């Protein structure tokens, strides 16, 4: 790794740490407590960014899968893997923070509401994607199969969305992105804090991506070295 790349990655890490520090201060000190829901509503500033990051990661998996099938370059496979892992982690975070928020507000840990259900299904799809990756030996077959699943999994999202929506829904209509405009119905300080948190999470995504890609590239190098020096003599 070049000196320059190392430097820029450490700058990114520090920037992310700073963003999170400011974000935390905003969430716990700056932003006022919601009148109806109370302190528990502050979990929103983690819940929504985590959900955004999960969807974003899965979209990147989709794009990288297409690019892999098109170009057949190992790097796209690595990007897809890294993004899928990050996506599953943040999707799990959504599924954990959601019930914590729902318990005092809706009076139940889990309700079979449209958005909860579709997040759960999405989580299942990408967990199965990772299982497929871990259970197959490294090589072209694993990369191809994973890419195929990355594509059909993402294309399934609109179907899941509508089917679950027509099935049943309890969620409040989206406040953040609504027909009345971005952030209508929310206090400006709340929108600002949410934006800050979204920015911090997005930065975190790139930090994690960079680290995961580095690990995977190193693994490849180790494999190559093993092949060259260990098995040949």
């Amino acid at each position, binding site marked *: 790794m070049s000196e320059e790349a190392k430097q820029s990655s450490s700058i990114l890490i520090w920037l992310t740490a700073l963003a999170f520090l400011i974000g935390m201060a905003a969430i716990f000190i700056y932003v006022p407590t919601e009148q109806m829901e109370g302190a528990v509503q502050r979990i929103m500033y983690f819940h929504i960014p985590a959900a955004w990051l999960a969807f974003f990661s899965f979209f990147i998996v989709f794009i990288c899968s297409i690019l892999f099938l098109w170009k057949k370059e190992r790097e796209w496979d690595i990007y897809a893997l890294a993004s899928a892992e990050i996506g599953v982690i943040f999707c799990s975070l959504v599924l954990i923070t959601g019930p914590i928020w729902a318990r005092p507000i809706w009076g139940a840990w889990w309700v079979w509401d449209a958005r909860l259900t579709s997040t759960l*299904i999405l989580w299942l799809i990408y967990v199965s994607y990772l299982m497929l990756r871990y259970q197959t030996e490294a090589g*072209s077959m694993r990369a191809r199969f994973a890419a*195929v699943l990355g594509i*059909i999994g993402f294309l*399934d999202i609109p*179907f899941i969305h*509508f089917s*679950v929506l027509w*099935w049943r829904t309890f969620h409040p209509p989206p406040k953040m992105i609504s027909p009345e405009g971005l952030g209508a119905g929310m206090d400006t300080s709340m929108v600002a804090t949410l934006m800050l948190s979204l920015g911090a999470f997005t930065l975190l995504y790139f930090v994690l991506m960079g680290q995961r890609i580095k690990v995977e590239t190193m693994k490849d190098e180790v494999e190559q070295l093993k092949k060259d020096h260990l098995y040949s003599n």
Partner: protein
Amino acid sequence: MHTGAPVIAMNRYLNQVRAIVWKDFITELKTRELFSSMFIFALLVIIIFIFSINLSIVKASEIGPGVMWVAFLFAGTIGLNRSFMLEKENGCLQGLLIAPVDRTALYFGKLISNFSFLLIMEFLILPIFMIFFNIDLIPHLLPLIYVIFAGTLGFCTIGTLLSSLSANLKSRDIMLPILLYPLIIPIIIGSVRMTSQVIAGEPLSSMTNWLSLVLCFDVIYIAVSIMIIDFVLEE
């Protein structure tokens, strides 16, 4: 001459598809292995459900459609699992891939045979379902056939693609349902909803949203499979 070439190519393609379907049917007629196991399994699923639900409390017409589709789904998974695993034995798949056959023809052949096996099994299960759940399906038979047709096609399009993929894995029996079930949840919800509406006597026109969702699913996944089957069946 000019118009002839595409027609000949089309005919050749259809012949390839037909050959694969024919091969599957001949094998099945000879062994009767797959069909009998699918049928008995579906029957068992229905019976186990009847024991686990108290039918004197729950209304049969409410729980019935769900049970029916779960039985179809589980039995269908057995069929899909066998579909490409059979080819893996003795290197048949290798032979098929070496043969001058288009990969999409291979996909369509497998899709058609999986789809028809499952449909035949489903129509044999229906009368048994009718008797066990005490639901009269005969007045609603036409819309019901339509719903079963659309739902089963959706299940088979994506199922055939994934079974061609999972046949190459070590833990194929387990991986196929794990990969398949989350993806077909929209189909399951749609089919169960439509089936219960049909049984309640509603016309198909009252469920256009579900119908279009399921049909869109069918069309999109057939198109996607055509595009990516080459990458799955690569040696």
